[in-house]
């Protein structure tokens, strides 16, 4: 990626905007990102933010365990109710290629 400017949060993958249900941290991070649009003076600026994840996590993350799911080429729903709702709205051909 080559964004015009970016902030960096040193958090576990899947938490880039802050810990779940920590709105004050999320607001601070989003605010910092938007502010950078006004303060960056040149393209390519990456501004690390000072927020620290509330508990140790890097040792585990650095084990780099691959938990990727198989490369399914059909829609993958969070749960079955979502699949049913999508079928009701969009039809089985679109919402569920293998039902």
């Amino acid at each position, binding site marked *: 990626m080559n964004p015009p400017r970016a902030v960096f949060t040193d958090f576990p993958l899947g938490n880039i905007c802050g810990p779940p249900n920590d709105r004050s941290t999320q607001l601070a991070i989003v605010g910092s990102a938007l502010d950078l649009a006004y303060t960056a003076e040149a393209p390519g600026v990456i501004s690390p933010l000072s927020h620290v994840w509330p508990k140790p996590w890097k040792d585990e*993350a650095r084990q780099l365990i691959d938990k*990727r*799911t198989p490369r399914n080429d059909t829609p993958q729903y969070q749960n079955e109710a979502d699949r049913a709702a999508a079928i009701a709205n969009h039809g089985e051909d679109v919402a569920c290629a293998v039902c």
Partner: protein
Amino acid sequence: MDEESDIDAVDYIQITRDSYSRLGFDPYRWASNPEPAAFVKPSKPLSESKVVLIASGGFYRFGDVAFTHKDDLTHREIPIDTPTTELRVSHFAYDQTSAKADPNSVFPIDALRDMVSAGEVGSLADVALTFMGGIYSQRRLQDTLVPALVERTRELDADLALLVPV
């Protein structure tokens, strides 16, 4: 880049390299963008600006079609007034425990709505644009998904785009 030298980041990229090789492909060739990104200073203060949220991470709205887990080049449009409880997520490559507990961990829609309520942000685009990410083909990304996102962003008449990768 100098700024990056102080960052003690976890090298998640190695997972992609290994995963890609296991699929039988040649070593992954990362995108290289030697030219500086387009750089435009905002013309209006944030409190008068319309912001569009563009996020990878696999978010969709309840009742809509989820993404596939294989190079999905489509995007979803989530109406900006969608209740947080109707947001869903499905992604092949990251732990979604936080995203399911609170979508704002990777899709800061409530944070942005709070900033509008507080007068810090002028307004939000009518929809947020979401996609899966983790698409291995640069060419297909650049030929298909990115032009669609750019076109919609222009149509939404946003002043600022907040891009949130995972």
